[in-house]
């Protein structure tokens, strides 16, 4: 049985041929397939090739069926390796998963960032993520007061 292939085009002009069954894990792509406008390939204006490669890698791994069974434990281990990425790549993946509407990838990427935040002091969070303090002294005092309840 030959599987139907579709072509995904990244924002920087690269084309990727992917099995339709794998690609429709993206709700965005699934809707386009339903609306039958994929004949000339699907342009993804918001996704660079470097990121699209990772997204396709993820979707291929998660296209699980009887021919391709995999245990949850193995998937978790794979997820960990998959997410061993530079910060900026993780954020690009979040945006791509959001745009392409791939819930499991979006959950995985957001959870990864949440895990990077957990247990860190505010100073550590600032330096890990390069966050600039743009509060005025008055705002800083106000925001401290309004969040005080969580630390009492």
């Amino acid at each position: 049985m030959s599987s139907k292939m579709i072509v995904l085009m990244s924002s920087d002009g690269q084309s990727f041929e992917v099995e339709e069954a794998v690609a429709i894990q993206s709700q965005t792509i699934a809707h386009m397939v339903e609306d039958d406008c994929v004949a000339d390939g699907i342009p993804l204006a918001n996704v660079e090739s470097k990121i699209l490669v990772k997204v396709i890698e993820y979707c291929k791994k998660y296209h699980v069926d009887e021919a391709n069974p995999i245990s949850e434990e193995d998937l978790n281990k794979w997820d960990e390796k998959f997410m061993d990425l530079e910060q900026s790549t993780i954020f690009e993946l979040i945006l791509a998963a959001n745009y392409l509407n791939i819930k499991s990838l979006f959950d995985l990427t957001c959870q990864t960032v949440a895990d990077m935040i957990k247990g860190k002091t505010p100073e550590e969070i600032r330096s890990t993520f390069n966050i600039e303090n743009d509060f005025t002294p008055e705002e800083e005092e106000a925001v401290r007061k309004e969040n005080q309840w969580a630390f009492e």
Partner: protein
Amino acid sequence: MGANISGGSPEFDRNDDVYSRKLRLVDLPENCVALIMTRLDPPEICRLARLNRMFRRASSADFIWESKLPANYRVIAHKVFDEITLTKLIKKDLYAKLSQPNLFDDGTKQELWIDKNTGRLCLSISSKALRITGIDDRRYWSHIPTDESRFQSAAYVQQIWWFEVGGEFEIQFPSGTYSLFFRIQLGKTSKRLGRRICNSEHIHGWDIKPVRFQLATSDNQQAVSLCYLNNNPGSWSHYHVGDFKVTNPDVSTGIKFSMTQIDCTHTKGGLCIDSVLILPKECAKEVIGSQ
């Protein structure tokens, strides 16, 4: 990157002669940041909110706090806040307010709050809201003022044959398992010249026969335990009566509880009762540790 906190300038990454700016956490759309925050505990969310303006805004997203509040939070909030207050509050502020103890607005001395880390419901029922046999007889019982009780008052029994303290409570408990405790102390403590003094003169009778602690729910869950009261005079203890499980948050669960020692061959006394606590089983240890 090191410890460069000024961090305002973007980093550039040479990639095939095209300079592309590296994406940072602060570059993500606010709703994505809010979705990341949903996966953190309330204290962590509040810690993030203090970092910059975007995080502050993102942390106020209603959907974050709706996921942290108990599923039936509207019902619970109505017990302690009026409609006008409720409609004015954003969900984050409602969570903040509920995480502080709030007195029930029906005049009874009972408080509820949600554990700030988990959003689970906690309750405290004052001695004044309990049914104490003989409470009006000053030979046996008295209400003593104390700042060691969140209700500023505890019930003290000097001496009695028929010791019976009970109560009941009904609310739409959010689903989960709860533990019920009596908070009591042997002896009567007071402050004199800034020092805490314990009066043990009336303590007697608790080592002769055990006290019977009991609870029963409206759906027939029961727990009984028999205990000799032997904690150190002057220190508050939480006696665990038992646990009960709630699976349906859409109906009220009633709970009856009691502490009795009615063997009239001996008197007992010198005991202070502060309150009854109903806590989620998972956070009980932590909450008690902080009391």
